[in-house]
Structures are given as structure tokens and as C-alpha cells.
């Protein structure tokens, strides 16, 4: 769907940039090259250190951020599924996002006022920023082969930011856990009981 939107809106100036919050490059390549019906022709970058997640305040996926010609954020991080495949879970109608995107690109309609943008932002708690530092330290240690210390700091990150999917679920493949298995279902129930924090279109 993102590829289709690119083919529709790219000629009118839109540049999609897919940012993969993945540690394993092969997993990203498989998604970008094999899974879609056509090869992706827009940029796909790999953010192993979650630089974009930290700088933009992204806590879950799939999330979009709209940036205008003057480097201004005109729509802050929001959950935006490409299609309605997981609508029962997301509770989000993907066409609303895509229609607003068309209005912005084709007709220059700003989706939100500045105050509305700020109202939707979720500034990070200090614990979340510490969790991001702990996660980054952990992946550096794991890449260097220091399994014990890496796991310890990853656990620290997950404890500090229990509702951040980029940290909680994103750590599952790194820890050798199935991100679609029991560890995920346990986390999902905990997150839903907490009121699905950080999840809004």
C-alpha cells in the first residue's frame, strides 16, 4: 500500500522514507524485497540504534510522521497502518490517514494546527529516555558478544519503559523470543490492561 501511495503521490512531490526499527538486517531485507507484490522503489533505511525513534518520540509501529518542504513536522507520530489487514487489532481505519495525506500533498491542506500538533505529541518521561540509553547500550554490548551484560541492560530498558513497543516487542527477536509468540501475548495483555498507551491515529 505504501508503494501504491508512492506511485500515486510521488509525482506530486511526496517522498516516503521507511525507517526499519530492526536489529537484524536480513529481516528488513526480506520485508522490503520479497514480501510486497512489487519491489519497493522508495528509500528504506535501517535504524538499529533507534535514532529516529528517540528524536521523533516514536513508541510503536506502524507510525508515520509528516514533514513539509520547510522541515516542519505537520503531523506528529501517529499510528498509521498501510491497510486494514489488522483492523480488529488496530481499531484504525487506514483510509482516513491516506485521504488526509492526499489532501496535504495534492491540495496543500495542512492536517493540523500547530497547537493541535503539540497537543498530540507525547513528550517522553525521564524513565523512557533512560530506557532508550539502556537499550542502545544493550545492543552495543550484544553486538560485541557480551551476552550477559547486554541482556541485563535490555531488561533494564524493558522495565523502565514497559509500554514502549519499540523497546518491549522490539527486544523480543534480539532476546531470541518469538515476537508473535507467548512473550508477545503476555506483553499485549499487560499493555491493553494499561489502556493501550501511546496508540492513536
Amino acid at each position, binding site marked *: 500500500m505504501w508503494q501504491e501511495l508512492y506511485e500515486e503521490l510521488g509525482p506530486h*512531490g*511526496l*517522498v*516516503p*522514507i521507511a*525507517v*526499519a*526499527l*530492526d536489529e537484524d*538486517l536480513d529481516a528488513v*531485507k*526480506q*520485508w*522490503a*524485497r520479497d514480501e510486497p507484490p512489487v519491489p519497493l522503489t522508495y*528509500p528504506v*533505511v*535501517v*535504524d538499529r540504534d533507534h*535514532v*529516529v525513534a528517540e*528524536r*521523533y*518520540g*516514536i513508541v510503536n*509501529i*506502524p*507510525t*508515520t*510522521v*509528516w*514533514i*513539509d*518542504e520547510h*522541515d*516542519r513536522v*505537520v503531523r506528529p507520530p501517529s499510528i498509521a497502518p498501510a491497510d486494514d489487514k489488522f483492523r480488529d487489532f488496530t481499531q484504525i481505519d487506514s483510509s482516513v490517514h491516506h485521504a488526509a*495525506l492526499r489532501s496535504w*500533498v495534492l491540495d496543500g491542506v495542512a492536517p493540523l494546527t500547530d497547537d493541535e500538533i*503539540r497537543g498530540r*505529541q507525547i*513528550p*517522553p518521561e*525521564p524513565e*523512557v*529516555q*533512560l530506557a*532508550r*540509553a539502556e537499550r*542502545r*547500550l544493550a545492543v*552495543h*554490548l550484544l553486538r*560485541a558478544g*557480551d551476552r550477559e*551484560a547486554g541482556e541485563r541492560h535490555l531488561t533494564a530498558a524493558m522495565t523502565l519503559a514497559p509500554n514502549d513497543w*519499540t523497546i518491549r*516487542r522490539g527486544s*523480543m*527477536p534480539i532476546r531470541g523470543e518469538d515476537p508473535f509468540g507467548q512473550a508477545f501475548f503476555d506483553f499485549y495483555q499487560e499493555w491493553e490492561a494499561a489502556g493501550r498507551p501511546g496508540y492513536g491515529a
Partner: protein
Amino acid sequence: MSDTTATIVDDNCATVVHATQDDDTLLVEADDLARATGWTLKPEGLCRDDICVPVRDRGALVRDHHIDLRAFAVALGRPLALEPGAALAVLAEGSDGVGAQLASLTAPPFTLPDLDDNPVALADFAGRKRLLIAWASW
């Protein structure tokens, strides 16, 4: 205490510094810390560019002519993740700093590798409308 080198990752940029491990902290040479983080200790406090942050407890910050990395992070209000045994430290942006950045509505720059390991920057597409799509295989 043992002399060693350590790596400080600040704003995702890694710098190797001379350091001494001391219990659960690292003592870093002031010049090296300035190289890694941009912050220099002056009489008025910790300074970078035109900004100086007063230091309340200079005795905790400076020991044996070195700067205590944990005290440094506390003085600047920045989160620090540290593994002294591996001589590795990561400084993140403070939550206030991120909040101010978000509220400015200015898109933070970034440069990341694509699938062929070529760098791609947000600024490569300056002057155009951009749609960031954060996703993952998990």
C-alpha cells in the same frame, strides 16, 4: 582503579576516550570528554557553545583531575547507561530536551544506512514533502 580506554556514545556518535574505571563509574580525562560530548568544564560550570550549566557539587564531578561520568550526566540532567566492566557508556538526550525539540515542530535531522549500506539523510530530500514510515519486522 585501572587505566583503560572507554567508548562514550553520545547522540549516537561513538568516541574512544582515555578513562579509569572506579567502582560503578568511569573517570574520563576532561579533554577527551569534551571531544566526546562537546562539554568543557570551566569556572562557571559545564559549558558548550554559548551555554553554561552551573555545577553544584564540583567535588563529586572532578576527581584525580578526571571527570566522573555519572556525576557529569547528573549535572547535565541527561540519562546515562553505563557498563563499567565493558568500558562502554551511552548518553541519551534528556526528556526536557526532547520535549523542547518536539514542541519546536522542527524535524530533527538524521542519516541512516539503506539496505545496501549507503547513507540516506532526511536532508537529501530537502524542499519536498516527506512521509516517515516507522515499521519493523516484529
